[in-house]
């Protein structure tokens, strides 16, 4: 019997120290993937995620990096492959920052910081990871976008631009590599229970048809599906996870 695909490679999740990224890391580890968890500054939280995975019988390693730096893609992908001695076959671009200001008050540095982390980093990591995925005839790129982007959200121009760009990027990658067994999809979460949404939950709740915030594990469930072999024919899609908010 051919080995399960999760035994053939490893996965890298950026922004994996908490919230959605941590849930995705735990989920993919439960599916048998050796997961490299990248984090920028929350070492303690990242360590806790890795420990949870280890206690559950999974494999995890931690990689510190600021994905907005140009050399980070090579560093992260290379180290993940070295530590597990496996090719990188799953890339989850989840790291994101926000800089919420009305456009007239949004400075160049904030704009650039958001675009670099949320969009350019995904580009560089994907560019680094794709050749090996093509060579292995299997690969999964999952980009964590947002319901913001296709829809406006006042005060989040940079974030919206980055996430809308990520969706366009995802679709283009999907078409370029579709014939080689490599898929690229985006997930568009709505209001999910993470630290980043703490302040806005109360105001948003009445607008959500499901009348509740989503759980990180519900986003992770979508990522697990998109990474699975069952999703081999799903590519270039955007899977919305928002309790009906954008329906």
């Amino acid at each position, binding site marked *: 019997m051919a080995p399960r695909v999760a035994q053939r490679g490893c996965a890298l999740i950026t922004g994996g120290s908490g919230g959605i990224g941590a849930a995705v890391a735990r989920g993919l580890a439960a599916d048998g993937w050796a997961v490299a968890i990248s984090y920028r500054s929350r070492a303690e939280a990242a360590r806790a995620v890795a420990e949870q995975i280890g206690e559950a019988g999974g494999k995890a390693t931690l990689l510190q990096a600021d994905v907005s730096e140009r050399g980070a893609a090579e560093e992260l992908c290379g180290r993940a492959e070295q530590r597990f001695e496996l090719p990188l076959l799953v890339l989850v671009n989840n790291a994101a920052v926000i800089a919420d200001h009305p456009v007239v008050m949004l400075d160049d540095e904030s704009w650039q910081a958001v675009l670099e982390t949320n969009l350019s980093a995904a580009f560089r990591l994907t560019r*680094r990871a794709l*050749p*090996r995925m*093509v*060579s292995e*005839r299997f690969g999964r790129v999952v980009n964590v976008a947002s319901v913001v982007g296709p829809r406006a959200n006042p005060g989040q121009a940079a974030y919206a631009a980055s996430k809308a760009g990520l969706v366009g990027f995802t679709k283009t990658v999907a078409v*370029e*590599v579709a*014939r*080689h067994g490599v898929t690229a999809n985006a997930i568009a979460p709505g209001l999910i229970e993470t630290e980043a949404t703490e302040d806005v939950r109360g105001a948003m709740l009445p607008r959500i048809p499901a009348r509740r915030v989503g759980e990180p594990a519900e986003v992770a469930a979508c990522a697990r599906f998109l990474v699975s072999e069952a999703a081999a024919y799903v590519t270039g899609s955007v899977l919305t996870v928002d309790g009906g908010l954008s329906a």
Partner: protein
Amino acid sequence: MNERILACVYVAIDEANEDRSDLPPLRKSPETQIHGTKAGLDSLGLINFLVALEEALERDLGVTVALSDDRALLRESSPFESVETLVAYVEELIGKQPG
């Protein structure tokens, strides 16, 4: 020039030409420029061509080589310039394989 590898390259050229219906086909000749000239393949076409070549080598010669991975694509002096340089590169890769 290794004729068996050359035959595999020509198989990959046939596949590449199927995707170039609106462009002049690549000729099956050692001098043909594969990449890096206007008449050659673009970057995406090159990736697809290399994957087709990998499959032909595996199917017809029973050898597994990684041409479409990052190492080869990032070489300063590209082994993918012409059919002749590509055949030599594949020969080099096969020669490095153990046993």
